[in-house]
């Protein structure tokens, strides 16, 4: 019965939770918190069931398609929201986090490729580390971005000497700044681990005389740009103390988010060899598999339609 759970089910639950969060601004209610949490938890449960079912049904590597990358990221972010909503019920986290969750689900469902990669990876461990680290770094950056936007809103209100807006209570600047700083640091570390694991994967491919991913690949360039920005912003924080404080940290997380969107946009729209290269031509299925499996789970990519092994959403090669 649970196999019938669709994307619409959990997206609708999150949407209702978001509507209830927004309704805080309009009126007060004693039971709204519980109902809101109930919808979000129901959505999270359905989301979990959906992903488990997809993983179990996968013909290739589980949860390795672009679509699933977005859905897993949304699932983790929804988990973060549930935690915050449960332990800080007075704060309107949902207004900032749930739109990101819904956007990820929307992009995953409407624009991303649902085709999974082949089953056997070049290195299962390094592939998982590479993909998992970059996925978690993305979630961390999204949490940091939400906290950054909340910080800027809260700081603006406090500077303008406005009383708290009914129903849109935000955490203190101190709390938001702490989350911001940690989000940047965690995403830097995870992104670093992810890129390192990607390099190791490339090395394994080189040793096995399989296809390597060129450093000039648009997705690699945009990911390295994002990583470079994270390194730079952290380095600035070490050298220039004021950037460790207040609004500057919030701005850093917002810019990091812009870099992230660029990297995701490149993965979605630009032809990249991240999931296969033109030199795979003639290598047959083996070359296809190696190239695809190398980077499963990392930033989602758009494979070249002219590649001989390109599979359309319908499954045709």
């Amino acid at each position, binding site marked *: 019965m649970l196999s019938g759970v669709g994307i619409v089910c959990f997206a609708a639950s999150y949407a209702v939770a978001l509507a209830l969060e927004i309704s805080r601004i309009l009126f*007060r*209610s*004693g039971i709204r918190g519980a109902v809101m949490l109930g919808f979000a938890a129901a959505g999270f449960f359905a989301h979990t069931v959906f992903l488990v079912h997809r993983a179990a049904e996968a013909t290739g590597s589980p949860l390795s398609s672009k679509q699933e990358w977005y859905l897993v990221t949304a699932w983790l972010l929804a988990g973060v929201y549930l935690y915050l909503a449960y332990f800080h019920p007075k704060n309107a986290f949902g207004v900032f986090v749930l739109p990101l969750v819904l956007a990820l689900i929307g992009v995953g469902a409407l624009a991303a490729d649902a085709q999974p990669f082949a089953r056997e990876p070049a290195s299962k461990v390094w592939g998982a580390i590479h993909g998992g680290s970059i996925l978690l770094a993305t979630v961390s950056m999204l949490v940091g971005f939400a906290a950054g936007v909340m910080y800027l809103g*809260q700081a603006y*209100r*406090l*500077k303008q*000497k*406005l*009383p*708290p807006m*009914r129903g849109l209570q*935000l*955490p*203190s*600047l*101190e*709390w938001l700044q*702490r989350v911001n700083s940690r989000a940047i640091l965690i995403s830097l570390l995870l992104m670093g681990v992810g890129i390192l694991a990607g390099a190791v994967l490339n090395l394994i491919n080189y040793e096995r005389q399989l296809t390597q991913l060129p450093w000039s690949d648009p997705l690699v360039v945009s990911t390295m740009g994002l990583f470079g920005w994270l390194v730079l912003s952290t380095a600035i924080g070490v050298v220039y*103390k*004021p950037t*460790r*404080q*207040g*609004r*500057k940290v919030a701005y850093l997380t917002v810019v990091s988010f812009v870099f992230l969107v660029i990297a995701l946009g490149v993965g979605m729209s630009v032809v990249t060899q991240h999931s296969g290269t033109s030199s795979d031509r003639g290598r047959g299925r083996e070359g296809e598999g190696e190239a695809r499996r190398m980077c499963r789970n990392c930033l989602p990519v758009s494979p070249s339609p002219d590649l001989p092994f390109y599979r359309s959403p319908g499954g045709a090669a």
Partner: protein
Amino acid sequence: MKLQVIGCSHHNAPIAVRERLAFSGEQASAALVQLREQFADVEAVLLSTCNRVELYLAVEGGCGPGRDEIAGFLARFHGLDVAEVDGLLYQRLDREAVRHLFTVASSLDSMVVGEPQILAQVKQAYQQATRLESTGPLLHSAFQAASKVARRVAGETAIHQRRVSVPSVAVADFARQIFERFDDKHTLVIGAGEMAEETLQYLRAEGARDVTVVNRSPERARELADRWQGRTLPWDKLADALVEADLVISTTGSEEAVVTPENFAPVEARRYERPLFVLDLAVPRDFDPAVGGRPGVYLYSVDDLQAACQQNRRLRDKELPAAVKIIEHETGQFMAELHHRATAPVIRRLKQDWEKPKEDELRRLLNKLSDLDDHAKDEIRQSFDRLVNKLLHPPLESLRHESRQGIPSTLVEALAKLFQLKD
């Protein structure tokens, strides 16, 4: 059954009188013991705060002490003339008493409506009376319901979130939105004005511990610092104190700004944009408004916060009808339960009287049908139970319905006559 409250509050008695009638914790215990000795069957809770002295009394099945007797008791306890006390006491009975208790616990009757301390004080008074075994079923129900009502009002209206005094708004609506915790923050008081102390009270309640006082007069600085277990710094160390501070309360009597963009610039350079909350309570202002534009500085003057206070006052007034509605609803429900409780003996007797013929008939039937297996016997028993319950349902429902209007004495009498219920 009678519930009543007798007392005085800031509404009808000046502070001079309230002070004379007030009870310390020990006095309240002694008074409850004496009251119990004097009126053996009376349940009592004594609520004594800065703004009110109230005795909540209840008697099940009697009248309890009257207003004059309680006035005499209070006067004797405090060594006052009865005439001094008598005219200042109000009395509320039954439904009015319950509504009054709910209103007080919800902080709608407080001097500063929405102040959160009163519920804790009500709970404390109830716990003290319970400890001294001066409460009974009626006051247990009433005070537990009062806590529930107060929680509802706090949860379903924004009355408690709307602060209306400048220091409370400064701390609750602004300082607390900047800092997550206060126990690791440095509070700097510039000047030794009285206004600073009220703010310090709120900050201390939030956990602030470290207080530094900088004042032109070291003696006055020392006095204030001693009261708040703080330290003092000489006036020429103001810049250093500002570098260290997280929260600043400024109340000097200076004719000119004490902190200007010029003398704040070196401080700013040493603070690295660390957030600084400044509450400028001085008139004229101690902080040049331009300082508030610097990164990380959140500067609030009295005028800034007055606007927020007024807005809060308006918003709080808007919430009042919703709070009153909750109290009315809960009072109605409580009274209905209370009245229904008075019908309990009749209901009990009715059930007992019907139980006996049911059991007799059941026994007779089962004796005749001795071949039946256990399952069939159980079915018959359950069927008899259902029949009795169905027959009892209409009269019991009528009793519950009538209880909403008051104790249904006529109906109770009618039931007793109809079914020949005996005591």
